[in-house]
C-alpha cells in the first residue's frame, strides 16, 4: 500500500513537472514565437488561450457525459467521480471561454457581448454545466445524486454538436477556420495540447480527491462520527 502510494505520488509529481514545462513553453511561444497579427495586434494572442479552453470545455462536457453513461451501466462510484471532475473542469473552461471570448470580441467587434449563435450556444453550455451542479447540490443521497446527475450529463451531450455547428447552421459572425500564418497554427496546436494535458492532470487529481472524500465520509459513518 505504501509502495503504491509513493509510486502514485511520484507519477503525479512527474506529470505536474511535464505539464508545467509544456505550459511554460506554450507561454513562450504565444508571446515570443507567434508573429504579431497585422489588424488586431497583440490582442489577437488571446485566441491561443481562448481556443484551447473552448476545446477543453467541450471535451469536459463529452467526458462528463461518457463517464456518466459508464456510471449508469456499471454503477461504480468511480465513474461518478470522473464525471463530476470532468464537469467541474469543463465548467471552469466554459467560464474562461466566455471571458476570453468577450475580451477578444471587444477588440474585434467593438462589443463585449453579442447574441451571435456560437456565443449563445457557449453560454447555453455554461448554463447546462451550472444546472448540473445545482442538481448535484440539491440531492443528499449519494447514489441518487450520481444517478440523476448522470442522466442530466447525458442530456447535456446534446449541446456539444450545437456549439460546434452553431456558426455553420445559423450563419454567425464567429470565425470558423480563419486564414493563419503557419507559425500561428503551430502555437495554436501546442496551446491546445498543453491545456488538454493540464485538464487531464487536474481531472485525475480532482477525481482522486473526490474518492478520498467519499472514503473519509464512509469511514466516519462506520465509526458513527456522522449520520
Amino acid at each position, binding site marked *: 500500500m505504501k509502495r503504491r502510494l509513493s509510486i502514485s505520488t511520484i507519477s503525479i509529481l512527474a506529470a505536474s513537472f511535464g505539464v508545467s514545462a509544456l505550459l511554460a513553453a506554450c507561454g513562450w511561444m504565444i508571446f515570443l514565437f507567434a508573429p504579431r497579427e497585422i489588424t488586431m495586434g497583440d490582442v489577437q494572442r488571446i485566441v491561443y488561450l481562448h481556443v484551447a479552453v473552448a476545446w477543453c470545455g467541450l471535451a469536459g462536457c463529452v467526458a462528463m457525459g461518457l463517464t456518466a453513461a459508464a456510471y449508469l451501466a456499471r454503477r461504480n462510484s468511480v465513474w461518478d467521480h470522473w464525471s463530476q471532475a470532468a464537469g467541474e473542469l469543463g465548467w471552469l473552461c466554459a467560464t474562461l471561454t466566455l471571458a476570453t471570448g468577450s475580451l477578444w470580441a471587444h477588440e474585434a467587434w467593438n462589443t463585449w457581448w453579442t447574441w451571435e449563435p456560437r456565443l449563445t450556444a457557449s453560454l447555453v453550455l455554461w448554463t447546462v454545466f451550472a444546472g448540473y451542479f445545482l*442538481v448535484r447540490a*440539491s440531492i443528499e443521497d449519494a447514489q441518487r445524486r450520481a444517478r440523476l446527475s448522470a442522466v442530466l450529463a447525458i442530456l447535456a451531450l446534446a*449541446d456539444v454538436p450545437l456549439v460546434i455547428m452553431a456558426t455553420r447552421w445559423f450563419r454567425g459572425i464567429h470565425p470558423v477556420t480563419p486564414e493563419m500564418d503557419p507559425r500561428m497554427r503551430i502555437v495554436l496546436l501546442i496551446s491546445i495540447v498543453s491545456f488538454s494535458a493540464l485538464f487531464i492532470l487536474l481531472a485525475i487529481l480532482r477525481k482522486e480527491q473526490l474518492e478520498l472524500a467519499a472514503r473519509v465520509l464512509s469511514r466516519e459513518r462506520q465509526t458513527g462520527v456522522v449520520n
Partner: protein
Amino acid sequence: MALSHAAKTWWWLVHKDLLRELRAPRAWPAMLILSLALAMVISVQIDSPSDQHLELAGGMFWLAAFFAGTVALDRSFSGEHEQACWQGLLLYPVGPGTLFLAKLAANFLAFCALDVVLVPAFTLLSGVSLFAQPGPFLATALVANLGFSAVGTLVSALTSGLSQRHGLLVLLLFPLVLPVVLGAVQATRAMLVGDFSSWWRWIQLLSCFAAVFVALGTLIFDYLVED
C-alpha cells in the same frame, strides 16, 4: 403481442392523465390563462402588423407558448408524487419506455391544446395571422411541441422529487430546449415571410432534435424512475 400490450398500456396511461386533468383540472387552466396573459403582454409591443412585426411574431408566440407550457410540465410528475401515486404506478407491469412515451403524449396534447387557444388569441391581439399558412404552421407546431415535450418530460421527471424543483425545472429546461425554441421561432419567421426553403431546413432540424430526444428518453427513462 408484447407490442400490442405496450400500445394498450400506453393508451391507458395517456387516458389516465387526460381523465385526471378533466375531472380535477389543475395544470391546463393555469397554463392556458398564463399563455393568454403572456400573449396580451407581448402583443402590447405590436401595434400594427408590418414586415418587422412578421419577423418578430414567431419569437413572441413561441416564447409565450413555451413559458406557459412549463406549468403543464411541472404538474406532469409532481401530481403523481402526491398521495404516493407514483409508487403505485411503478408497481404496475409497465415498461419505463412506455411510461415515458405516455407522459410525453400527455404533455404533447397539453401543448397542442395550448396552441389551439393561443393562436387565435395571439392573432386577435397582435394582428399577425399565424394560421395564414395552415399546413406549414401545423407542421411547425407539431414538431416543435414534440421536441419540447420530449425534453420537458425528461427534465420534469428528473426534477420531480427534488426540493427546488420549480426553479430547477426552468433552469435546466430552457438551455436544453434552446434548439427547439430557435427552430420553432426561425421556422415560423420563414413561414410568415414566405421563405419556404429556409422553413424546410428548420423543420428538418426540429424533427432530428425531436427524434433524438424521444429515442434518448425511451432509453434512459428507466434510470429516472428507479426510486
